[in-house]
């Protein structure tokens, strides 16, 4: 009956009752499928004919005009076989690239820091130089500045003396840096009065450093002094200066 139904010869009540039986019969479905496939083979009994080659061309033209929407491609076993190593290779390459990029990034950050540090340093230096220039200008132009000129210092210490004279009390005299004298010569201190000839204030010797002093010599009281002088005289001294003057100080 399955073959007859598949062949399509059943009709009327016979056909309906067969169909209602097949509906409620789980085993019938495969049997019917087999019968249909079997009956279908009768197609092979048709006399062999060949469609024109143009028929295939027309079909393919029609097919190319319509493209079915591509279904989601499922990865099948062979693809996984390839996919895993490919994916692994991609992951490794990415990991290497990431590490290199991170390192490079770190280097660049470090260089940036260095450059920023240099900029700060240069700015500080500039500020300091500006400040110095300002200060220099200020010193050169300020009225409160003392101006002192200096010259080459003499090769030997300059002889000098200091006299402290009070006409009623007496005289103190200190000398320094005086050259050593031959044994037949001596230093003699003179008081030059406002009027009249110089008056001897005594003779004195110097030590090894050229220092000498005359303390409270006997002088006539109440004499107004115009100047003091030291001369080189023969041993024992002279009543009036004869030798060259080595020191002279005018009372100002």
């Amino acid at each position, binding site marked *: 009956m399955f*073959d007859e139904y598949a062949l*399509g010869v059943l009709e009327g009540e016979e056909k309906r009752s067969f169909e209602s039986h097949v509906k409620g019969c789980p085993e019938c479905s495969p049997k019917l499928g*087999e019968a249909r496939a079997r009956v279908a*083979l009768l*197609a092979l009994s048709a006399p062999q004919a060949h*469609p*024109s080659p143009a028929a*295939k061309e027309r*079909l393919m033209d029609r097919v190319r005009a319509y493209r079915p929407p591509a279904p989601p491609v499922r990865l099948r076993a062979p693809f996984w076989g390839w996919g895993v190593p490919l994916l692994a290779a991609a992951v490794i390459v990415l990991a290497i*690239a990431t590490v290199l990029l991170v390192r490079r990034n770190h280097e660049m950050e470090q260089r940036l820091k260095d450059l920023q540090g240099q900029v700060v340093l240069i700015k500080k230096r500039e500020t300091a130089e500006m400040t110095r220039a300002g200060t220099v200008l200020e010193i050169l132009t300020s009225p409160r500045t003392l101006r002192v000129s200096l010259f080459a210092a003499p090769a030997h210490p300059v002889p000098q003396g200091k006299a402290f004279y009070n006409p009623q009390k007496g005289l103190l005299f200190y000398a320094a840096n005086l050259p050593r004298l031959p044994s037949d010569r001596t230093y003699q201190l003179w008081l030059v009065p406002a009027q009249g000839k110089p008056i001897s204030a005594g003779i004195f010797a110097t030590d090894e450093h050229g220092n000498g002093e005359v303390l409270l010599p006997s002088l006539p009281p109440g004499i107004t002094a115009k100047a003091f002088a030291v001369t080189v005289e023969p041993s024992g001294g002279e009543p009036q200066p004869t030798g060259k003057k080595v020191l002279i100080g005018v009372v100002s």
Partner: protein
Amino acid sequence: MQPLENPGTLSVRTFFEKAARALSTIAYSQEDRASDLDLIRRLAQGDESALATLYDRYGGVVYSVALRVVKDAGVAEEILQDIFYHLWRHASNYEASRGGLGAWLFVSARNRAIDRLRQRKPSDGPKEEESLPSGFNLESQVAQAELMSRIKSAMDGLPGPQRQALELAYFEGMTHSEISQRTGEPLGTVKTRLRTALQALRQVLNP
């Protein structure tokens, strides 16, 4: 910074290129031996060449059946085209079972041709989802030719009236009573003849 061009990456790429080339060569040489199942999958992914292969495989029988039924080459070609175009558009719905695609195409060809012959609305043909498990391998041309000769010798071996009844049923879509009317034989006789012919067919096809 040359991680993208390092030797490892290059060799992997070369490997895959070589593998793809090798596989395409194999696929080309085995085109004719691809299973219906594989071809249907490729159809579903839009591979036109798979349709051409299926056409070469089954188009001859489909066209022969249609022509035998409608007896008009133009109409038969139209039916042939419609069937393969339908397959192209609905391949993703097609539930392929081993040996089933050939049977499915033959049933479709016969049904469409009979609908045209009898100028009736398309009848309920086999659905794409319907499995038609045939124990026979129709995928190779050799197996198809072998099966064809078995069917033809079985038909030739049938007594004339049995063969006529079977051909009226199969190629002209007649029912029991229609055959009875055409041949002038009683209905019961027609039924018996058909049942006997179908039994003979089953015996030829059962191993």
